[in-house]
C-alpha cells in the first residue's frame, strides 16, 4: 500500500513540479533580456573601477613608492637627479622638480589590478584610465612606457648621475673624514633619502651597465626601444 502510494505520489510530483518549472521558464521567455550588446552598448564603470593603469608622467616625482607597493613587481622606474642645466621645470604643485623620471615602464600583461600602486602615489600621477579594452596583438605592446626621454638621453643622464653620485660620495667621504659636516647633511637628507633608498635597486643595474660602456651603444642597433626595458628587467632580476 505504501509503495503504491509512493508510486503514484512520485508520478504526481513529477508531473506537477515539471509543470511548475516549465511555467517559470515560460514566464522568463517574455521577460526583458539583460544582455548588453557589448561593442555597441557599453556599461558605465563606477569611478573606482580598476581598469588600466596610467601614469601622468608630468606629475610623477619618481618616488618609487608604486614600484615598491606592487605585489607582482611590474613597475620599473629609473630616475636621475635634476640639475640646473636640465630646465626640469616645476611639479604641478609648484615646487621644482627634483628627479627626472628616465624610464617608467609598466608590464600591463602582468598587472593584477590590485590598485596598491595607485593608493600609495603621493602625487596622484598613477591613476586608472577607466578604459578596459587594452587588447593588443603582441605582448610588447602591453609594455607601457610613459617616460619621454629617448634612449641616448637616458644613457647620458644616467652616466651623468653616476658621475655626480661618485663625486658626492667622494665629497661625503671627505666630509665624514673631516667630521665637520653636521650642518651640511640635514638639508639634502629629505630629498636624497627616498632617492637613495630607491636608487639602491636601479643603481645596481645602472652601475653594472656603466662598466661595460662599450657594450651599451650596440644595443639600440640590435633592437628598437621596446627591447631595452626588458633587458634591463632581466638585469634587475639577475
Amino acid at each position, binding site marked *: 500500500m505504501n509503495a503504491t502510494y509512493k508510486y503514484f505520489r*512520485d508520478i504526481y*510530483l*513529477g508531473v506537477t*513540479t*515539471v509543470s*511548475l*518549472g516549465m511555467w*517559470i*521558464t515560460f514566464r*522568463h521567455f517574455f521577460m526583458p533580456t*539583460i544582455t548588453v550588446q557589448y561593442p555597441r552598448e557599453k556599461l558605465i*564603470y*563606477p*569611478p*573606482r*573601477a*580598476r581598469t588600466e593603469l596610467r601614469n601622468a608622467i608630468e606629475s610623477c616625482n619618481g618616488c618609487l613608492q608604486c614600484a615598491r*607597493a*606592487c*605585489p607582482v613587481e611590474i613597475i620599473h622606474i629609473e630616475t636621475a637627479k635634476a640639475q640646473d642645466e636640465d630646465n626640469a621645470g616645476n611639479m604641478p604643485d609648484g615646487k621644482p622638480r627634483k628627479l627626472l623620471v628616465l624610464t617608467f615602464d609598466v608590464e600591463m600583461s602582468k598587472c*593584477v*589590478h*590590485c*590598485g*596598491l600602486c595607485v*593608493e600609495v602615489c603621493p602625487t596622484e600621477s598613477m591613476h*586608472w584610465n577607466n578604459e578596459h579594452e587594452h587588447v593588443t596583438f603582441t605582448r610588447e605592446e602591453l609594455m607601457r612606457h610613459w617616460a619621454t626621454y629617448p634612449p641616448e638621453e637616458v644613457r647620458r643622464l644616467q652616466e651623468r648621475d653616476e658621475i655626480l653620485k661618485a663625486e658626492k660620495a667622494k665629497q661625503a667621504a671627505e666630509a665624514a673624514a673631516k667630521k665637520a659636516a653636521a650642518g651640511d647633511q640635514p638639508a639634502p637628507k629629505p630629498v636624497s633619502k627616498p632617492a637613495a633608498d630607491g636608487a639602491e635597486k636601479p643603481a645596481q643595474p645602472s652601475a653594472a651597465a656603466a662598466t661595460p660602456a662599450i657594450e651599451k651603444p650596440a644595443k639600440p642597433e640590435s633592437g628598437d626601444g621596446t627591447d631595452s626595458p626588458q633587458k634591463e628587467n632581466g638585469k634587475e632580476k639577475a
Partner: protein
Amino acid sequence: MSETKEIHIPLGPSPEKWDLLSKGIDPFGDQMILQMGPQHPATHGVLRLELKTDGEVVTKITPYIGYLHRCFEKVAESVTYPQVIPYTERMDYLAGMNMALSYVLAVEKLREIEVNDRVETLRVLVCELNRIASHCVAIGTFALDIGAWTPLLYLFQVREHILDLLEELSGARMLFNYIRIGGLAHDIPTGWIDKVREFCTYMDPKIPELNGLLSYNKIYIERLAHVGVMSQDVALQYGITGPNLRATGFDYDMRRDAPYSGYEKYDFQPQIGAGEQGTPGDCWDRYIVRVREMEESLKIIRQACDRMPEGDVKETIPKSLRKMPEGEVYVTTEAPRGELGIYLVSDGTDKPYRVKARSGAYCSVAAVPAISLGGLIADLVAIVASIDIVLGEVDR
C-alpha cells in the same frame, strides 16, 4: 579508510599490467580505469579523478590535485604583509572578500589592531554579499552538472547584481583587494547602502523561484536524494567544515560559535540539513543548506544595512607595516566553502615568515572517495558538484 590500502596505479596500467595486456589477459577483470579530468566539464576546474569503474559503477576513486597550484604560501613569504592580500583573494576567487578577511584578521590579531564598528559592519556586509555570490555559482554549477542549464544563468544574474555592487564599492568585480589590514580601502560611495537594500528586495523573490524551478523539482530530488550520503562521523574525520558539515546535521557555524568581526551582533540561524528528501547529509541536503544560507545571508545584510554606524574606515590602518611583532597567530573564519584558517608566523620583518592556509574545499575533496564509492558516474558528478569545491582554494 580502506581505499588507502589499495594498490595505487599512477598513470594508466603499470608495466606489469601492460605485459598482461599484451598477452591478452585482462588484469582489471571487469573493471575499467577512467580518467575524469583535469579537462572534464564536471570537475569544476582542474580536478582529476582517477576512477575504477565496473560498468558505470564507481569502485575506486583517487582524486589528484595540484593542477592549479600557484604557491600561495610560498609567495606570501616573499611579499610584504599588505601585498599578500591580492594573493589571498586568488585562493577562492569566487569569495575573495571572505578569503581576504581571514588573512587580514590574522594580521590584525598579530599586530593587535582593534578596528572600529563601521569597518566591522562593512566587512560583514561585503562578506555576506560575497557569500551569496559564491553560493550562486555553487548552486548554478551544481544544477549545470545535473543537466539543468537555466538556473545557472538565473543565479548569475543575481551574482552579477552583487558584483556590480562590490565593483562600485571596491573597484573590481572578483579580486577586490578591498579589505585592508586595519581597515578598508574605501568608504562606501553615496547611496550605496540604498542600492544594497534594493538588491535585497530584488533577491527576495529569486529564492522561491529557484525552489520552484530546481530545488523541489522531482527529477532534481531524485538525482540528489540518498546520493553521496556523508555521515557526521565521516565529515568530522575528514575535517569537513562549512555548509558540507552543516548538511550532515552538525550544527556548527564559525560565525555563531566563534564570532569574529562582530558577527555576534547579528541575528541569523545556521542552516542544517535534516534529510528532508532523503538521508541526512546527502547531496540534496548540501544543496538546500546553501540555498537557505543565502536567505540567512540576506538577513545579515539587511541588519548590517540598518545598523551601519558612523566612523572612519581608514582610521586604524597602520602607517607602516615594516616592523611587525614577532609571533604566530591562527585565525579561522567561515568562508562559503568551509572554514578558512590562516596560520601566520612573523619574524619581525615586513614580510611574513610563514603563511599557511587551511581551506575547507581541500578537506572536501579528500572526502570524495569516502562518500561516493559504489555510486554511478552520474552520482559522482553530483557529489563533486555538491561539495562545491573551487580548485583555486584546494590547490592554492
